[in-house]
């Protein structure tokens, strides 16, 4: 409480830039196992902005720096230079508690040491909003129930997390993130272990949730077509560099994607007016 108030003050240069909620400004990062050696991995100055209700897809091949960028946005890593603002506050200088009240992160998978029921898992999302040793209030329970309902998983409430399918689990994990009532929702390859129906289902939910709750969503993905279908903005990354930022129609150009993904492909305009990529195999 007092610590979060302090963090709010420490957030300083509150330069509210138009209506952007998330503002990534010239962010760079270098990772090296040993400080005396040359960095093994670098992220060069990257900038983009996102508004409430917008979905940003960070797209790129393996080792392009997608996940690093997401970790920087989540506050788990501190940038080497530049800054990332959420509603004008520097993210990585917030306390973990304040961050968790504003940012929810959905990771690739969530491994539990001891079995838990889905509702217990979703209630974990309320942790940052409740005081130490406080038992969950009726409000927390209502929020958790709503979160499960929002992702269409109300019927999973009493199921055990280790006895549900991958797609169902991913929805419960998303529900926990919604229970955090965040401003910013970050997802790291959420579709990785899902079949196609579950992938479409998940991204469809995301689209709806972002519109309904005015979340800003940042999602890291390999899936060119899902990103094209559901993202408002695409951040295209290659080898630690941010190549382009823009709406899918502007980014999805054959030469550019072929060069980034190192594979021949075609780009056509789909029925929805969004680009569609077909990878040409065997050449």
């Amino acid at each position: 409480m007092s610590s979060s108030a302090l963090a709010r003050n420490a957030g300083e240069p509150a330069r509210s830039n138009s209506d952007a909620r998330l503002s990534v400004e010239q962010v760079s990062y270098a990772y090296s196992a040993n400080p005396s050696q040359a960095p093994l991995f670098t992220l060069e100055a990257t900038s983009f902005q996102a508004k409430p209700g917008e979905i940003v897809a960070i797209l790129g091949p393996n080792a392009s720096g997608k996940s690093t960028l997401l970790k920087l946005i989540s506050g788990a890593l501190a940038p080497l230079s530049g800054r990332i603002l959420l509603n004008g506050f520097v993210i990585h200088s917030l306390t973990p508690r304040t961050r968790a009240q504003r940012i929810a992160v959905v990771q690739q998978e969530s491994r539990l040491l001891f079995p838990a029921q889905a509702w217990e898992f979703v209630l974990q999302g309320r942790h940052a909003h409740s005081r130490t040793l406080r038992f969950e209030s009726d409000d927390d329970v209502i929020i958790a129930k709503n979160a499960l309902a929002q992702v269409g998983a109300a019927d999973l409430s009493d199921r055990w997390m280790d006895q549900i399918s991958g797609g169902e689990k991913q929805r419960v994990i998303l529900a926990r993130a919604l229970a955090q009532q965040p401003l910013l929702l970050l997802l790291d390859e959420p579709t990785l272990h899902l079949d196609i129906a579950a992938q479409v289902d998940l991204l469809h939910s995301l689209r709806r949730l972002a519109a309904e709750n005015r979340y800003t969503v940042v999602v890291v993905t390999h899936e060119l077509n899902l990103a094209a279908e559901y993202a408002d903005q695409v951040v295209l990354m290659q080898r630690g560099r941010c190549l382009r930022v823009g709406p899918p129609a502007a980014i999805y150009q054959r030469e550019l994607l072929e060069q980034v993904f190192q594979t021949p492909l075609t780009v056509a305009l789909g029925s929805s007016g969004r680009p569609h990529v077909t990878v040409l195999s065997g050449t």
Partner: protein
Amino acid sequence: MRPLTLRRLFFQCLILVLILFVVAVVAIKFGAVPVSLYALGRDVLRYLLGQTSQISTEYGFILWNIRLPRILLAIIVGASLAVAGTSFQALLRNPLADPYVLGVSSGASVGAILALIATPYLSLSPALSALLTPMGAFLGAAATISAVYFLGRREGQIDSTTLLLAGVITASFLSAIITFLMSTITSSNTRGMAFWLLGNLSTSYQKSVYWFLGIGFFVAAGAIYTTATDLNLLLAGEKEAMHLGVDVPRVRLVVYIAASFLTGLAVSVSGAIAYVGLIVPHVMRLIFGSDHRTLLPTTALGGAIAVVFADTLARTVVAPTELAVGAVTAVVGAPLFIYLLRRGTS
């Protein structure tokens, strides 16, 4: 959806308190000198009515000066070890972590023995020198858990198998040191080798020691309890816990220090009693679930019940001689450990 309420927590603890009471009464009754329940009830009543002079001196002495202090000791030691085990399991994300398996108990033993050896050479007041043993045990425990934590890491991540191996190796190394110390030093004050290696509750202490143990337990366990919801989230991993709002470095520091202190506390008065911190949390998790707000108080009570019960067995099975209580807990704990290990790897 049935979130935890204070009421439910209270009833769960109440049941365990009643069981602990029954086990304690049984423990008072059984022993080399049999005591009838009737005589016990009569004497308790007389004691409560202030008619202490009417209590038969022989019974009175055995009950109040031998068995009751021993039961008190068993309660505090059992609760401390069980809470320490639960904490280590959550922090290290390893269901097999336990003060004994990780070598923390052995580290505490070495610390306590060194403190006992050093005491005569330091001119301290009696009260201060009584505190020196638990402090030595605490430092030994803290040093060991730090060492095992770093040995158990691979590429910056705690690796479950490496951690257990590091613990087992550390424990056997420290046992060698204990054996060496006990064989070379002939001080009447250092208790026996079996005491430190297997655990034993037969030593009786001054009244002030029991106060120190009791207060120490409540302070350390209380500190751990303030992190109960954080520990729930830590089960899913440190990164995930951080994203859900847990101040991971702070929780880690508080819980490591408090859990090492509890281990040191228990070991300094009872030696290294094996597997209590492993068996009890697992049983309690099966009954009450893995929410640490329930788990911590129920394991404390469960640990107390388990050690009082095991000590009663240790006193009576081969009466009039006595087993080490650690031998009794190991007979139950070791097979469980193997079962959990095999279940975990398959």
